[in-house]
């Protein structure tokens, strides 16, 4: 098994989770595994795990018992992630929420979108060796 992604095996990974706190650890595990295969170092993987956990918590608090989908888009030296609520909601995220502040501090890119009343959180982590 290849230890890292390369140009031929960069594939988008999508998982759908119930808005249930019991599955946040599954999201962290998936993120950790994908980041590890991209050769992110331990500190970067911890940052990604924490950011994923915060995003999942935000969605669980706003999911109203529904589901949300996480799309992992690996590319050389960076991992992009998109969290999308699978049903409409009038709720929005508080930009001053501690979870949002953490994601902003831990990731290199972060944005929220509320198109069609389906909140989306997008974030990206860049492997530091690629950003030098």
């Amino acid at each position: 098994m290849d230890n890292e992604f390369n140009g031929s095996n960069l594939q988008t990974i999508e998982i759908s989770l119930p808005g249930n706190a019991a599955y946040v650890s599954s999201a962290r595990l998936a993120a950790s595994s994908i980041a590890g295969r991209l050769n992110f170092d331990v500190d970067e993987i911890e940052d990604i795990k924490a950011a994923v956990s915060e995003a999942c918590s935000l969605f669980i608090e706003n999911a109203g018992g529904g589901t949300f989908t996480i799309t992992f888009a690996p590319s050389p030296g960076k991992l992009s992630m998109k969290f999308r609520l699978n049903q409409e909601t009038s709720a929005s995220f508080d930009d001053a929420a501690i979870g949002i502040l953490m994601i902003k501090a831990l990731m290199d890119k972060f944005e929220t979108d509320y198109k069609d009343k389906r909140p989306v959180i997008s974030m990206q982590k860049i492997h530091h060796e690629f950003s030098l």
Partner: protein
Amino acid sequence: MDYQITPSYDAEKSVWNVALSGEFDIFNSPELKTELNNLIKGEGKAELVLDCEELTFMDSTAIGTLVAVLKNVKVHNGSITLKNVKPSVLKLFKITSLDKIFNIAGDANG
């Protein structure tokens, strides 16, 4: 998800030592809150030392839980000390500036 909350009472120092292990997030933070608040209520003593040597992950929900417990502890003129905090966990306390309101006694690598 593996996690444990293991309290032991040091009668000599009148302190609850609580070993935390595993991961704490939105799922098990309510249990963490209940367990810690019960310790304070049970002994009427509000000194907590949380040993984080085996604590591998904590998110803002869990940190928020500790803040809530700290408020309760302060009502009883007590304090919360965290020791052996891993750098990855300490980083989250620093990002939120909550490292200033807890006694943090050193990280697991030092």
